[in-house]
């Protein structure tokens, strides 16, 4: 590559730069500051602000460093009289229409314009005329606008087009009348929209929830890891007096680049929700009382002991959120196993566990996040990556724009922000059949497979997908949340495995929550201990625990009626249990009903811990803010419980010891998805009547997000409705806007009918994880509809 390096000189400093690089890139790499507004390393070059003017030897006038490629022997001066004069003049022009009222601007103190004006501008303005005024726009609950401050750098416009993949903002009008906005009354709805707040070099686009609540110099910047998806975006948290004021990205090229999703950015509001549990509480004789930690912990320990003594250890179970830390999960399973029970699980939205014994060490992406960009063909099975893992979708989008074929098998067509080559949208019960068709087209055979695949129909579309996967240089099949919660998830995984084997593709899983991978490693599973240690006697899985009902439960960060596969079963089992300990950050009326003791635990940013992301990256973090009220980190609560129950191995002074102990056990072991699946057993799901498609909307995935006020005001935040296509609606005699009675396994709710062409025949769309569908049964399963 050395022939591609050119020798240049900036400010007398000899440098090497890649051929084709712009002067500003070479200067940035060498730490030489050049002022800029419109240039951003992740966006295309616009060269419209002209702030980065520099002197280039032999050029008659200053040149924009962001749009001037380096040439061999080029001599650049960034602080010469010519360069400085150019920069000062541009600054004067930019300030003509910019208000000089920094004290009342939310960006004041952290404003690129302010900084650059201080460093490179003049000290007076010669402009005496009237400044222009631009009306503010309402572009939704996340981003506040102050459009008079806009300097038209168009970073936000380019971000929409190039990264978010939806052009929502634009520059309309011209000359003095040019404005950045949506032109029509419209909200900006991209799941990555908040990044324009960071990109905006002035105070035109700022964070609406954060607005006017703190100044940058009052806050301390601390680091943590995002707690909502398997990307594990690196975050900076801005904290004032131990309270999280806002969240911004921390650059990590391998994980989140310079971006974060809106969910990771705005969910912090959920930390300070009104229903936050601030003190331990116990239920005695049917009424609740706030008590000291000692009393509550004793009460909890005694209750657990009583369940084990009176009903047997097999009647005790634990359910944990996949957003819990590695350390919490590790101690939780230790506690349960110490009490003699292996009923512990984090796979709350899963129903088919039949292949768990052959599963890999932990289900992972099968490749690094960054490598997703290099794929040439991708088959997404039951995965709405754009909403589930927005930054994994961003990598796939880059691959797609490079020409990769993105193909989809799902029950509901996700809304992509890049072109897809094939989409097989079928009722959930037909998804295995589609994968079998693709496998058969790839020539999969041998042993039991022949018999199974004999019945598989190969359609031309299956052949096309098979062809594309096989002929791609790098291919991958990614199995997402919907496939994982499918009643035949094991068959889907198995068929995906066969396809990967035949097409020489990488099999990847998109783990649930922020720490689905970590939960496997920690042993928060009924059939495996920490580090994948095989157990002779498997306990009950999440589904069995909810369906069969146990006498005692320990809940960690879970709201079972919203977070479990079968909402009705979860609510019923908990209500009928003798004793329920909830380690929770919130107090809900449901908990008051089913729980016996509520232990307030810290949320993300308030606790130290570790998340393992989809690519198996262990990312540890410290607590960056004080827990609300009397809440304590979950690992500490579990440690004390372990001690109170006289269990061994609960002597830890900090969470790192727990992590290090586990890390030693895991050692160099790597997860291998490709060989880890059993043979598929059947292709056709049993089908009678209508099937519910119950996906979880992006802002309903966990208790914290559900309480993010601003996020809940966006268009992506949606409650349950009865979505069906016109054919199904006609059969049921329903029309748009009708009220319909929706029944599933004893649970019943009334929902509004919404015609939706995306829903396949024989199916209805009733979202899970939202208040409107609480009390219904399986999120994918039989459902009955009648007119209300």
């Amino acid at each position, binding site marked *: 590559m050395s022939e591609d390096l050119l020798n240049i000189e900036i400010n007398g400093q000899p440098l090497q730069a890649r051929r084709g690089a712009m002067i500003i890139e070479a200067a940035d790499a060498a730490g030489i500051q050049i002022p800029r507004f419109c240039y951003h390393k992740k966006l295309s070059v616009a060269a419209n602000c002209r702030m980065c003017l520099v002197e280039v030897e032999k050029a008659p006038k200053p040149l924009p460093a962001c749009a001037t490629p380096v040439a061999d022997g080029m001599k650049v001066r960034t602080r010469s009289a010519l360069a400085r004069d150019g920069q000062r003049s541009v600054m004067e022009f930019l300030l003509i229409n910019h208000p000089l009222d920094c004290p009342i601007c939310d960006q004041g103190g952290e404003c690129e314009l302010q900084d650059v004006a201080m460093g490179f501008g003049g000290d007076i303005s010669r402009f005496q005329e009237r400044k222009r005024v631009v009306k503010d726009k309402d572009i939704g609950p996340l981003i506040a606008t102050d459009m008079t401050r806009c300097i038209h750098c168009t970073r936000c416009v380019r971000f929409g*087009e190039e990264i978010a993949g939806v*052009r929502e903002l*634009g520059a309309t*009008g*011209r000359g003095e009348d040019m404005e950045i906005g949506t*032109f*029509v009354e419209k909200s900006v709805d991209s799941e990555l929209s908040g990044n324009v707040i960071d990109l905006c070099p002035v105070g035109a686009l700022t964070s609406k929830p954060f607005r006017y609540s703190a100044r940058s110099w009052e806050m301390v910047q601390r680091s943590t890891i995002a707690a909502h998806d398997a990307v594990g975006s690196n975050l900076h948290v801005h904290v004032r007096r131990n309270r999280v004021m806002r969240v911004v990205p921390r650059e990590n090229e391998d994980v989140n680049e310079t971006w974060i999703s809106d969910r990771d950015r705005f969910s912090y509001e959920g930390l300070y929700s009104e229903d936050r549990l601030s003190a331990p509480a116990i239920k005695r004789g049917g009424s609740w009382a706030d008590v000291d930690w000692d009393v509550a912990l004793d009460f909890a320990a005694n209750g657990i002991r009583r369940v084990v003594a009176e009903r047997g250890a097999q009647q005790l179970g634990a359910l944990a959120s996949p957003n819990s830390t590695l350390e919490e999960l590790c101690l939780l399973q230790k506690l349960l196993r110490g009490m003699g029970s292996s009923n512990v699980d984090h796979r709350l939205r899963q129903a088919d566990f039949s292949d768990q014994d052959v599963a890999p060490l932990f289900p992972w992406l099968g490749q690094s996040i960054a490598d997703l960009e290099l794929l040439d063909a991708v088959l997404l099975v039951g995965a709405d990556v754009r909403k589930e893992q927005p930054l994994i979708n961003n990598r796939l989008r880059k691959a797609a724009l490079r020409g990769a074929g993105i193909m989809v098998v799902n029950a509901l067509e996700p809304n992509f922000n890049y072109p897809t080559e094939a989409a097989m949208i079928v009722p959930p019960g037909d998804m295995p059949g589609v994968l079998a068709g693709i496998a058969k087209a790839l020539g999969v055979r041998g042993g039991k497979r022949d018999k199974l695949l004999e019945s598989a129909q190969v359609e031309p579309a299956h052949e096309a997908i098979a062809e594309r996967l096989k002929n791609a240089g790098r291919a991958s099949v990614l199995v997402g949340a919907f496939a994982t919660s499918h009643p035949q998830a094991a068959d889907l995984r198995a068929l995906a495995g066969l396809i990967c084997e035949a097409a020489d593709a990488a099999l990847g899983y998109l783990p649930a929550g922020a720490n689905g991978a970590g939960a496997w490693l920690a042993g928060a599973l009924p059939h495996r201990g920490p580090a994948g240690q095989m157990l002779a006697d498997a306990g009950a899985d999440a589904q069995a625990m909810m369906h069969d009902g146990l006498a005692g439960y320990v809940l960690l960060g879970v709201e079972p009626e919203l977070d479990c596969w079968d909402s009705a079963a979860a609510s019923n089992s908990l209500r009928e249990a003798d004793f329920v300990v909830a380690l929770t950050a919130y107090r809900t009326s449901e908990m008051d009903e089913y729980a016996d003791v509520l232990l307030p635990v810290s949320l993300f940013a308030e606790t130290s811990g570790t998340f393992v992301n989809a690519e198996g990256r262990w990312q540890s973090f410290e607590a960056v803010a004080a827990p609300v009220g009397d809440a304590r980190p979950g690992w500490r609560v579990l440690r004390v419980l372990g001690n109170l129950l006289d269990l061994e191995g609960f002597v830890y002074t900090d969470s790192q010891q727990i992590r290090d102990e586990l890390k030693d056990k895991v050692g160099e072991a790597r997860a291998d998805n490709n060989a880890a699946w059993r043979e598929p057993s059947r292709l056709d799901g049993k089908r009678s009547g209508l099937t519910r498609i119950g996906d979880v909307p992006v802002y309903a995935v966990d208790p914290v997000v559900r309480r993010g006020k601003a996020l809940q005001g966006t268009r992506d935040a949606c409650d349950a409705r009865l979505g069906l296509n016109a054919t199904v609606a006609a059969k049921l005699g329903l029309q748009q806007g009708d009220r319909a009675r929706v029944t599933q396994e004893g649970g019943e709710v009334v929902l509004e009918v919404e*015609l939706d062409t995306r829903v396949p025949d024989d199916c209805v769309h009733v979202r899970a994880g939202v208040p409107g569908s609480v009390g219904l049964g399986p999120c994918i399963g039989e459902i009955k509809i009648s007119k209300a």
Partner: protein
Amino acid sequence: MSEATGRKSDSLSAHAREEIDRWLERYPSDQRQSAVLAALQEVQHENGGFLTRELMDGVADYIGMPEIAVYEVASFYSMFELKPVGRHSISVCTNISCMLCGSDDILEYIEKKLGIKLGESTADGKFFLKKEEECLAACRSAPMMQVDHVYYEDLTPAKVDEILDKLE
């Protein structure tokens, strides 16, 4: 989200589609947005001289470009009107050559005659006096104006009367 009935491009007439198709043929298939100017002109012409949001959204859908990108084009070029205007569009050139030859007087005469100011339409919806048109490249016979799509040159008040009075 559920789709209401039909597509946004339904707002375009069959004739407009034909015209747009004709323009689309001239550009490579991966650069359909090149036809946006011609498409907007056609649609505006059919709509009595101005564009509506529905029509712009229709063009965006038909050509396959983001709606905001169509708004950008429509709001940038002065030949597109985004609000209802009079049937006959009058553009008096006030650029240097015309100004030196008395375009200001011509403009004042028209304003008085029609009882409207620049940028306004007459109450009967007959005339629209367009704001600040740039040089229309007829300097050799200044002052000039463009009425609808026709150039009128070497203007005098009498000539203006004759031109405007003839219009229906």
